[in-house]
């Protein structure tokens, strides 16, 4: 599926949209980490919590659940929060 990478993480991917596989949000992030080592920990902490200043959208709907299922054709959009003004 297509994944939108926020600009602070493009030092890993070198591009805005990348491909990754997985049946849930968490699995897609795992796959991203295989392709771009280190990227997952910048977004998800060791207790499997989403970091405070990152937001995840499946298509147009925000999710806070790494176990959220994904369907074929979904897009995962990773966005840097507006925190900080």
């Amino acid at each position: 599926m297509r994944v939108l990478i926020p600009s602070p993480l493009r030092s890993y991917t070198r591009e805005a949209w990348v491909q990754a596989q997985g049946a849930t949000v968490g699995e897609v992030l795992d796959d991203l980490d295989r392709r771009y080592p280190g990227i997952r920990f910048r977004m998800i902490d060791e207790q499997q919590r989403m970091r405070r200043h990152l937001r995840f959208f499946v298509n147009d709907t925000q999710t806070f659940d790494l176990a959220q299922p994904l369907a074929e054709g979904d897009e995962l959009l990773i966005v840097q929060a507006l925190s900080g003004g």
Partner: protein
Amino acid sequence: MTTKKKPGSATGGRGLRAGGESPAQRGATARKARGDGPASTVLLVATRKGAWLIHGDAARRAWRADGPHFLGHIVNHLVLDPRNGRTLLAAAKTGHLGPTVLRSTDFGKTWQEAKKPPAFAKKADGSGRSVDHTFWLTPGHASQPGVWYAGTSPQGLFRSDDDGLTWASASAINDDPQYIAWMGTVQDGTPDGPKMHSIIVDPRDPQHLYFGMSGGGVHESRDGGRTFSLLIDGLEVVEGFPKNDPAVHDPHCIRIAPSNPDRLYQQNHCGIYRLDRPGTTWTRIGRSMPKKVGDVGFNITVHPRDADTCWVLPMDGRTVWPRTSPDGRPAVYVTRNGGKTWQRQDRGLPAEQAWWTVKRQAMSADARDPIGLYFGTTQGEIWASRDEGASWRCIARHLPEIYAVEAAELGA
């Protein structure tokens, strides 16, 4: 993450050997043994917005800034491995992203991220802690190439055995309920989070370690970090708190004397102290500081060849703790007799209306003769002295807020 720096904007470091001295002194010893030419000093500057390498010429008169490296990253510490003179580790995060350790094995020409940065164990019941940032980096013992220690916020002790590539918990204290109670909550820590810092490896014994926690006190291990014991006797705490509770102890910076590793100095939230081992009771040597200046501050720097000499940079800890230079007149204070007396050193520093201060990692010394002293301010200036603090000159300004300055030496 892999980044490449601008070609030709930094020199490559020549290999340095490690020994039983301070990192800067080890470099000097190695150079002498090899018969190398005159050294040059490089300052490793970590800031709120990136890192810089500030290269000095052989005379330490002209300085050249190489940077920023990883602009926009909050860099708490940038340290050169004195055992090989090439590996740099940087403790980094950004305002939005999680923490990492950035690593260069070619003295800053290219950088790679650690494959497994410091992280606490996952707890199934949801009570687990998460590393907000790595705060402190310490190269391991000379006999253990590739070993590094890291201290984090919140407090945790981590170790790498592969030159900073992967990190694992270094001690049971990271999950010990008693230690976690002593570490306190975020509310008990410094304004940007509670810290583990001042990780010290005894140059005579890789199993003998010290560290400090803000808050949480001073601790010592004789078994390589497996277990620790308290070392807080003699230390003052804020009025009203019980002295026997490690949670309310706030060591700001602890240093070992390179020329006498049985001597420790400490700048604490509540004064300046010295401890001569095997003793276990700290002596408040800051009582001999001028009363008007006081003995509050964050950093303390020990002479690499004279265990009786150290420097502090006091800050205003009165009333609401402005954390500025006292009366807007910054000065370094030196003792040359283990803290019996102190002398003010302010020639060249602003005489008035200078309200910056210097954080706990932001002052260090090289090992030249006379030694050079360097500090970085909260307002982005670097000040240098080529005469052991007798006079000072600003060698860089307009940098972001400076968190750490480490002096290292390169061969000619």
